[in-house]
């Protein structure tokens, strides 16, 4: 479903972020991408969601050739993907409910559909009671669950989680990962970027290890091993 073909990314003609990446991800996979800071994990995600363009190579997602998408085509493309960030990136002037509803509104869903789906997903992430709180009234774990709910509500085929547990304590981290596994079981492809060793080792799923802009290891039921 996702295919990186000889993808390189060079910033300012000298700083190499990714070098000759070849990576295929199949539908319904759960892939963890691990590596040190600066290994190129986040750049990989930025290329995938069209925030940056590759300097070389081609990048496919389903029927899209991502490296060729124009500014105006990006919104529709991004709505195929759910994204969760380390810093949550919720809209600060909207309540939890409105943040989640926003993703459906972008898809042009009717108000009755929104009123049906949003409470369901709030229930699924365990936040029914906080539906009408603003982000600054929520804890980190709660915020991240809102972000996941927002990323999932429009039923994307792929969920990208860029260090979703980076700002959370171990207990909340475990909750989030459990949620991601459940989502994967329900049929969504998940790409998890992390440097949390424990999480990766407990998952027993495919692990792609990166270092210095290259993929150094790619194993089914992999473990967190660097260098």
């Amino acid at each position: 479903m996702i295919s990186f073909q000889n993808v390189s990314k060079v910033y300012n003609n000298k700083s190499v972020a990714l070098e000759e990446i070849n990576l295929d991800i199949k539908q319904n996979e759960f892939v963890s991408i691990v590596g040190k800071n600066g290994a190129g994990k986040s750049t990989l995600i930025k290329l995938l969601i069209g925030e940056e363009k590759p300097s070389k190579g081609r990048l496919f997602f389903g029927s899209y050739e991502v490296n060729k998408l124009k500014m105006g085509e990006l919104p529709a493309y991004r709505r195929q993907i759910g994204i969760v960030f380390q810093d949550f990136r919720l809209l600060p002037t909207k309540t939890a409910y409105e943040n989640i509803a926003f993703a459906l509104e972008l898809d042009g869903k009717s108000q009755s559909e929104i009123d049906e789906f949003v409470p369901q997903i709030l229930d699924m992430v365990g936040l029914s009671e906080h539906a009408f709180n603003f982000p600054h009234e929520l804890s980190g774990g709660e915020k991240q669950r809102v972000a996941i709910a927002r990323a999932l509500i429009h039923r994307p085929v792929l969920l990208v989680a860029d260090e979703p547990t980076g700002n959370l304590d171990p207990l909340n981290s475990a909750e989030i990962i459990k949620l991601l596994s459940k989502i994967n079981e329900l049929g969504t492809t998940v790409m998890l970027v992390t440097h949390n060793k424990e999480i990766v080792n407990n998952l027993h799923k495919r692990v792609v290890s990166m270092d210095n802009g290259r993929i150094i290891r790619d194993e089914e039921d992999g473990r967190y091993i660097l260098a």
Partner: protein
Amino acid sequence: MFTALFRIIKYGLQGFKRNSWLSITTIIVMTLALLVFIGLIIFSVLTNKVIGSLKEKIDISVYFNIDTPEDNILAIKRSLESLAEVKSVDYISRDKALEIFKANHQNDQTISEAISILDANPLSASLNIKAGDPKDYQVIAAYLNNDNFKNDISQVSYNQNQVVIDRLTKIIDTVQKSGLALMVILSLVAVLVTLNAIMLAIHSTRDEIGIMRLVGASNMFIRGPYIVQGVLYGVIAAILSIIVIAPAIYFTSPYMEMIMPEINMWPYFLTNLLSLIGYQIGFGILLGTTSSIIAVRKYLKV
């Protein structure tokens, strides 16, 4: 389509309400800018009025010799009327001049008696000439100095009043030019101040714009609410500016009228209230929306 429009408006109103402090300060800045606008409108209308009445007061009169036949005078009148510079020519015959003179001195016993003693009418016929542009009096005066008319004309008033007319013409010209410059500069200031205020307001929400882009919002969906807010700012600021300027005009109007009787600001304000409100709202909306569009543009490139 309609749901999208409805949601854009809803988010515009929501953002306006939830960022209330930002909205209030932006509206205050815009109100000040629009006060400058309405001030300029009123200023230009009033100076035009004053200039118009000054121009109206300038004219030149040609006095003819007492024995000049009326036919000659009318011929000169026609030839004057054929000049492009001349706006109007009034013929005042000797009899009419006497009539006017008598009427003017009705209450003055000595003069009335002196006139009645006279057998003949001592007054000469004259032409009263008005030019479209005060600068043209010189041309008209030069035309009258023509040799053909020499035997008929006794005097041309321009020759005595030349200095005054020239100075008045210069003043009118300067007022018009500097008024235009003032308007251009002040409107530019008003536009820039508003643009800056709205850019700052939107700058403070730039992270939100980035997030919306990343979760797949189209540019129109992001921009729309800001445009709605720009319209709101404009309309509210326009109404506020009218509310602020109305009492100011009401109280200064009598004093202005004392200095220059041609200027009656309050009646002008009242009769043109609707179009003034229309101008203000138009300016406000134009200013608010264009500023919003320019300001959001910058942050949409994610």
